[in-house]
């Protein structure tokens, strides 16, 4: 089962996979040492199963699988003579940071400025970033779509958008 474009599966190189696996292994160790012990209580009775059993099992599996992925991709890199094809992980980190900054702006913008303005700006800037240059069309949709959505939310669902 795939969940996106066919080329989804070929974007990552062994080096990127190793970086991601190291990150996941670090996260799972953090979960096992800090997050789970500090944030999940113990079993109420002697014969009960601890609420932390399942998250702990999942975190151990995550650690094991991450280490396995590192081993497989180190072997792959060695087989390729240390020259993994594909780009480095910098572009993925850059995209992630750009999106998280955008998401933060969207989140606080929705709470402070409100839906109509934030939605209009999102549509306009999104279209410009995607290389669309019909300014009349961008302007019209940036005004019409947020208005239609906010009116539909209110008139049909009785929900006031933020």
């Amino acid at each position: 089962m795939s969940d996106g474009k066919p080329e989804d599966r070929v974007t990552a190189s062994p080096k990127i996979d190793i970086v991601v696996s190291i990150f996941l292994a670090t996260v799972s160790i953090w979960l096992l040492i800090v997050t789970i012990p500090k944030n999940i209580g113990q079993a109420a009775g002697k014969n009960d199963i601890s609420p932390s059993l399942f998250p702990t099992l999942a975190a151990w599996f995550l650690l094991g699988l991450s280490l396995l992925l590192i081993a497989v991709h180190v072997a792959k890199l060695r087989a390729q003579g240390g020259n993994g094809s594909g780009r480095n992980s910098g572009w993925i980190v850059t995209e992630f940071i750009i999106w998280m900054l955008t998401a933060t702006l969207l989140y606080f913008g929705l709470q402070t400025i409100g839906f109509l303005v934030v939605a209009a700006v999102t549509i306009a800037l999104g279209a410009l970033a995607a290389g669309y240059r019909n300014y009349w069309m961008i302007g019209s949709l940036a005004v019409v779509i947020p208005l239609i959505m906010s009116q539909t939310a209110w008139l049909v669902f009785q929900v006031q958008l933020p």
Partner: protein
Amino acid sequence: MLDQLFTGFGDAFTLINLVYIAVGITLGIVIGAIPGLGSVTALAVLIPVSYYMPPLSAIAFLVGVNKGGTSGGAIPAILLNSPGTPEAAASALDGHPMAKRGEAERAMKFALYSSVTGDTISDVMLIFLVVPVAAVALQFGPLEFTSVLIFAFALLAGISGGSLIKGLIAIVIGVFLSTIGLDPMDSSARMTFGTVYLFDGLPLVAVAIGSLALAAVIEQLFDLWRAGGEVESEGNANMVSSNSKLPFREFFSHWRTIVRSALIGSGIGMLPGLGVTLAAFLSYGAARNASKTPENFGKGDPDGIIATEAANSAVVGANLVPTIALGIPGNIAAALLISAFIIHGIVPGPFMLTMHGEIIYALFASMIMANFVHLVIGRAGIPVWAKIAKAPRGLILPAVIVMCIVGVYLPGQSMFDVGIMLAFGGVGLVMRRTGFSVVCLVIGFILGGMFETSLRQSLLLYKSDFSAIIESPIAIIFLALTGILLFRAGWRELRGAIG
């Protein structure tokens, strides 16, 4: 069973239900026709809208969205040679050459009729198979359920993309995330970090919309940004339609391909984890092998379109067999339908037929009705869908981000949910870029609760004695199948890694 089905038709055949089905199919085709979106995005974005509907109408509406979205994907594939989803790629192989020689409308009719026929055959199979499968599932105890879930996870991870390990990692992350919130047995807080918003766990709709729909949109926006905009391809050129007629007699003269493809799609749809894409390509390959003129495939042979569309639409009905009988989704669309069932107070699984029998049979009736509505709307709207498919993505994608925000905010009016969705948009983006399956993450998240409950019940019931597995032949079979699957996929991956 027939009595219950007729009663179901009585319950489902109301004007309001028909309107919801029609709206669902229309929205599904519209969103499915936009390259890069597809039926999963359509379902994810529209699930929150169904909160406001009665349970039957809501499920019928979402089934309509799924049917419309699946067949809508063929439109950009045929007209623009731009398959928005992997399963539509096979439709483009023969659909676009037909369009280029002036038979675009005929190709779209072939796609629509095949889609509706394949879907109807699979719906009939669903109606007849769900009861026997559920009857078997009723014999399952927690141990058997645990083993079936482990098998489903292995199957899903094994065919989720390039890497078994990555598929398993995505499932484990999803399962781990499902443990956030109150403990299902003693209600103690787990990783809620003192916030009441997390007592019910991470909001399912926010996680699904963020990682599936929003991430796909962000990814395409970044691609367009990097490419400096959408490139006008030769497929975008206006195509003159010289031959648009397709009599039903001519369509049904391809009955062998129709039936074969519907059966392939239904068979694949019934197995958890195997998806629409596999069905489409297997069916395409089978049609080419069976053809007397295999050299015509890829050059505009209608059998190529029929094979693809009948198979991928047949998955829609058949994947509800494990969903309803076992509570285990056949694919991501069924996983999203499970979340809609849960939201409307219907717990999927073998008890669904006894506890909510009237809704399930009304749902079956709605699915059959939806096929006729699909045929009418799909046929009447062909000129409109063609225009939608040609709409610039740079203009549509940012509007989908706004739709995602509204969709998540509507049900609970919670900015926390919106924040979770935006964060999972980033998680989904990184997962897509690094080749981790977002589908595995979401299915792991949806099934995590059921997996934990059945595992803990098994441990309590058998006092953590693992030798109890020997007493259950069903558990042994599923665990053995899991072992074989993991070994085969693991061996293939290891061999690929060391060359």
